[in-house]
């Protein structure tokens, strides 16, 4: 059995019926993915235009702790270098929105985004707001250059595979976050410490986050004295994050997992004041309108594909 087939079997759903409409579905997915990719580059343009109001804030900065993609800022006049990155980002984002079918435009968008996000994170703190945009912009470079009418089956398949890889890398980062939390919990459990799987774990994290910067949030101060209410939220978040990558292989889950991750980010904002809105937008684009989601409603499809839960249901029903 090949590696990719083994991976599909490991991450994919229990019942994996081959569809007689596979070819038809490939064309539908391709058309939908193409529209989403166009929207993707329009959103990048929106980000670049929205940045213009912050240009003076960037240009007033007098010191940078440069990340590797903008190392060259150390050897050029800082203000001029930053102006080059900001204006370059705007120009390439515009080109990307107009010519998303051209690889040269997508490559320039990736470089512009990489430089801008690296600059934005070169002031002492790396935040992860735009990491997923950088990673997906890199993957989208490899989309085939095509006209919709001339795309044959092989080209369509390459297109949807690259699109799927964008979904997969986004979900993989959530799985890594979930795996980190589980590993951390196991370590702290054996060390006899409080951990994320304990009732007071979540509220300790919230309290520390708010105390560190003496900031507040909408619901955090209220939840801290009520750890039992926060506990199921934390356990649900760990499940959602840990098994996110599985959802990439289970198309009935795409929309639901996307909605879950967006709610997760809304919850994080309300409780901890951490804004992750660029990631919310990307998750919405890739999953709420996933081109692989089956529009037909199949009873029990979602439950049948939920990691662990589907296995549990399968075992229980088989034993009855």
């Amino acid at each position, binding site marked *: 059995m090949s590696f990719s087939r083994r991976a599909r079997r490991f991450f994919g759903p229990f019942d994996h019926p081959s569809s007689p409409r596979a070819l038809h579905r490939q064309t539908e997915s391709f058309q939908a993915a193409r529209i989403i990719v166009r929207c993707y580059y329009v959103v990048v343009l929106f980000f670049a235009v929205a940045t213009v109001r912050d240009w003076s804030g960037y240009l007033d900065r007098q*010191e940078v*702790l440069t990340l590797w993609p903008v190392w060259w800022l150390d050897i050029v006049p800082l203000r001029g270098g930053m102006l080059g990155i900001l204006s370059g980002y705007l120009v390439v984002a515009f080109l990307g929105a107009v010519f998303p079918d051209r690889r040269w435009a997508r490559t320039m968008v990736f470089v512009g985004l990489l430089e801008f*996000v690296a600059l934005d994170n070169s002031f002492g703190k790396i935040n992860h707001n735009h990491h997923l945009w950088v990673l997906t912009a890199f993957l989208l470079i490899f989309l085939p250059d095509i006209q919709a009418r001339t795309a044959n089956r092989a080209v369509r398949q390459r297109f949807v*595979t690259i699109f799927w890889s964008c979904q997969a890398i986004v979900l993989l*980062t959530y799985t*890594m976050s979930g795996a980190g939390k589980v590993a951390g919990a196991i370590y702290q459990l054996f060390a006899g410490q409080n951990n994320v799987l304990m009732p007071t774990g979540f509220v*300790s*994290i919230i309290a520390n986050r708010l105390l560190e910067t*003496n900031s507040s949030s909408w619901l955090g101060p209220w939840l*801290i004295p009520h750890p039992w209410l926060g506990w199921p939220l934390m356990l649900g978040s760990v499940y959602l994050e840990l098994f996110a990558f599985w959802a990439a292989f289970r198309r009935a889950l795409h929309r639901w997992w996307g909605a879950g991750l967006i709610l997760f980010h809304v919850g994080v904002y309300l409780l901890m004041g951490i804004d992750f809105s660029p990631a919310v937008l990307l998750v919405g684009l890739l999953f709420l309108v996933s081109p692989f989601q089956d529009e037909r409603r199949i009873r029990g499809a979602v439950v049948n594909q939920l990691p662990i839960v589907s296995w549990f249901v399968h075992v229980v029903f088989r034993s009855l």
Partner: protein
Amino acid sequence: MAAYRILRGWVALFLAGYFALGFSTLLLPGREIFPVSSWSLFALVPGQESRYALRLLEAGGQKLAEPVLYQDAEGLVANPHSVAVREIVQQFGLAVEQGRIQEQLRIRRMLEKDHLPSPCRYELVTISYDPLVRWRTGRYEVRPLAHYASPGVTP
């Protein structure tokens, strides 16, 4: 078909590589090589925390009645609740304790030019606390590490 197989293999390699590289960045001092990250955010529950912090003694030429933590310095600094400053101060504290002079100077320049009022006297301290106890009682312990004055003098 061969081209598609290569593409699929490449995608699998990219995903596996990101996973492996991401977690291996945990071994690095900065715990990240942008844009590769372990994404281990809030993986550990804070117990008895020990963090670096800045305390202002004098701001904009005005001597303060008692030292004020940067995050409590509403009206004295532009953005007392800045997460970026919190991170910069952690890097600063590590650089001071490990005696990395060049990095200290660089971070000080950034703090003094972009985040602290001028002129200013301030100290680097460590604060120790249990988050839930501090949340309820406001109690924490302070240990001063070094004094600074901006622009550019270390008393």
